[in-house]
């Protein structure tokens, strides 16, 4: 078993682009769920808005990347209003139900044959990143870094932009949550009626939180699509939101550190587990008592099973994650 390779990949995963785009999605989800208590299971739909907004404008309208960002922003606001208006006055479960339905519909629409001319169907959109590439100071062909952590110029560029965005939004969220706005929103999470009785428009704050969180998620989708160089509908399924949620809970909800370190740890663990299991089953299935428990092709599902199990255990035994405070959780009635 090539332990060195496994460890190398694990360390690379901590700092890789996957952790970065997950962190952005988690920061957004944290604003909505961690701080305000909104169960947004449709974060992947906001991510899709980002990716498709960028992709479509580049590919089909031939306009520059910056217009793409504006269009994506418009899409996010529309989506946020569409989802928020019917549900934010009602109990939390309804938001969860509607957002999951929305995420699914968004995925079906962008993947459909009917709207293929706009969204590229199941092939997606594949050539939109030129203006982004042109901004890069690095030579896309060359390799940078020291072995074993080497990246192509383009990958390095997206990583730097990605992590810079993570730092930027972390800082913004930190400032926001320390402000009176953050105070209102944290109070809403605990008890809406108390906040209402003090004259604050709870519904409006929830909507703001939903949309702001969605905007950060939008950047997540953009970075992801830019790194891959393509926008693929199946990357924005509802499962993605669940994995981001798991990463967030792992790090610690309502903590800025949690929303960044959580995804890093998540990817480190996932890549480790994935690599480890693949090495384990490389030549023959992994057996217990003569039963072939894990075949090479089953490594994927097994890994995802572990994620699901992990989320269950986290919520039950350590809901505050790594960085959350136990006392805050102890005061929790939820």
């Amino acid at each position, binding site marked *: 078993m090539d332990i060195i390779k496994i460890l190398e990949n694990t360390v690379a995963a901590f700092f890789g682009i996957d952790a970065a785009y997950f962190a952005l999605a988690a920061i957004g989800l944290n604003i909505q769920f961690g701080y305000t*208590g909104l*169960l947004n299971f449709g974060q992947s739909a906001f991510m899709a808005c980002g990716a498709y907004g960028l992709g479509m404008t580049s590919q089909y309208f031939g306009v520059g990347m910056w217009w793409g960002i504006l269009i994506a922003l418009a899409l996010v606001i529309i989506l946020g209003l*569409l989802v928020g208006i*019917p*549900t934010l*006055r*009602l*109990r*939390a*479960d*309804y938001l*969860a*139900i*509607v957002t*999951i*339905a*929305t995420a*699914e*519909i968004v995925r*079906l*629409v962008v*993947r*459909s*044959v*009917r709207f293929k001319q706009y969204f590229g169907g*199941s*092939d*997606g959109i594949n050539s939109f990143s030129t203006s982004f590439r042109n901004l890069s100071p690095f030579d896309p062909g060359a390799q940078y870094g020291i072995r074993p952590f080497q990246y192509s110029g383009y990958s390095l560029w997206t990583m730097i932009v990605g992590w810079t965005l993570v730092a930027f939004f972390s800082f913004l969220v930190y400032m926001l949550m320390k402000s009176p706005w953050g105070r209102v929103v944290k109070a809403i999470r605990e008890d809406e009626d108390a906040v209402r009785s003090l004259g604050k428009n709870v519904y409006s704050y929830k909507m703001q939180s939903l949309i702001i969180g969605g905007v950060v998620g939008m950047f997540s989708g953009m970075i992801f699509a830019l790194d891959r160089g*393509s926008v*693929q509908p*199946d*990357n924005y399924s509802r*499962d993605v939101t*669940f994995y981001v*949620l*798991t990463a967030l809970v792992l790090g610690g909800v309502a903590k800025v550190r949690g929303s960044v370190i959580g995804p890093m740890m998540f990817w480190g663990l996932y890549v480790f587990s994935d690599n480890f299991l693949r090495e384990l089953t490389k030549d023959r299935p992994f057996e217990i008592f003569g*039963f*072939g*428990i894990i*075949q090479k*092709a*089953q490594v*994927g*599902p*097994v890994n*995802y*099973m572990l*994620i*699901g*199990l*992990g*989320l*269950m255990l*986290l*919520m*039950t035994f350590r*809901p505050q994650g790594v960085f959350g405070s136990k006392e805050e959780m102890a005061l*929790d*009635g*939820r």
Partner: protein
Amino acid sequence: MFVLLGVLVALAAPAAVHALDSDYSIIVSVANQTNNNGVAEKKPVAGVKIAITTPAGVAVGEGVTDATGAATIAVPAKDDYVVTLDVASLPSGVTLVEGTKTVVNIVKDAFTTNQKRVTFFAGSTGDSGASLAERIAQRLVDGVRLGLIIAICSVGLSLIFGTTGLTNFAHGEMVTFGGMMAFWFNVLLGVPLLIAGPLVIALGGVFGLAMNGLIFAKLRKRGIGLISQLVVSVGLSIMLRNMYLYQFGGRTRPLDDFSLQVAKSFGPVSITMRDLTTTIISLVVLLGVAAYLQRSRTGKAIRAVSDNPSLASSTGIDTQKIIRIVWFAGGALAAMGGLFRGLDEQVGFEMGSGLIFLMFAGITLGGLGSAYGALVGGFLVGLLVELASLVVPAELKNAPALLILIVVLVLRPQGILGRKQRVG
């Protein structure tokens, strides 16, 4: 729970070996679509040659579609490939749909699991002469079928919400459980469905009991809040879905019994005897459930607890027992839904997860927490979805369900039969 895991794994071992024989593969299907009176039928096309190369033109593999119309061609890794269909090898009388490309590019990221599916459609999808009334009639029949299945699957979901406050995101996996068990009994063990059916349903009930007893009852005891429980059910859903994927593989497979059927025509509509039977059974079960809830003592107790748990327990009803009954019944009904769905559409690891959001639409329409609401709402959603496919492309026919959800929540959030207080 680990015992459950171990048992399922042990049961799965033979299935696993059977299902997966290579790391990655591209599954190419060729289907001939015909349209009789508005009923679209897909028939597999065998004997079609498929070739897979790298974008540079290096040959990777090739295959010929088998009797199910599919060719599974192994590929070395998740990568970019070019899939080419040999038009000359199409049987006579079968032509691809106008405008279909015979060369398809696969991008590395298109592999969401270890297998990528590509389908080529032959035949014409234009409607052949069926009048609007006939098409509506056929859709109505399909809608009734789907609606009854959704209604059966969602009763449990609604009652679980009513009695415990939990929105169970793993309910779809309880439906899939039914399909999986049906497959195991019928295909792997060779037990005829008439005997296996009741077994599957009973096992579904046990599964429901286990989910409650091993997980959610314990969470409630620990005082873990409803939102946290909801997130746990999300984790459970991920875990179960991937467990099914792990055992069953990524493809959908039909059950052995009753799978090859010819549709019979009844006037303007056509339906297979199998589907007609399952529809009738579903209707009978539905009415039975409704009658049970209305007349029997336990049924009334269930409705009382679902409506107002604290009030009900103060009148001496054993709420814990009722909750267990609800989970058992919910699991059993979901498994039945899975069984019928498996007969209708083939068994797959995601068969239930796809239904869950139609179920949510149904119980929101009918009223969260109301048992009758789930029946009425689920049925209506099924009907509406099938009718919508008259105007909306088939791939998007679930979209109107979302619209229903949003409209209901804006206009009348408690649904048709729900109570207003539960809502906001």
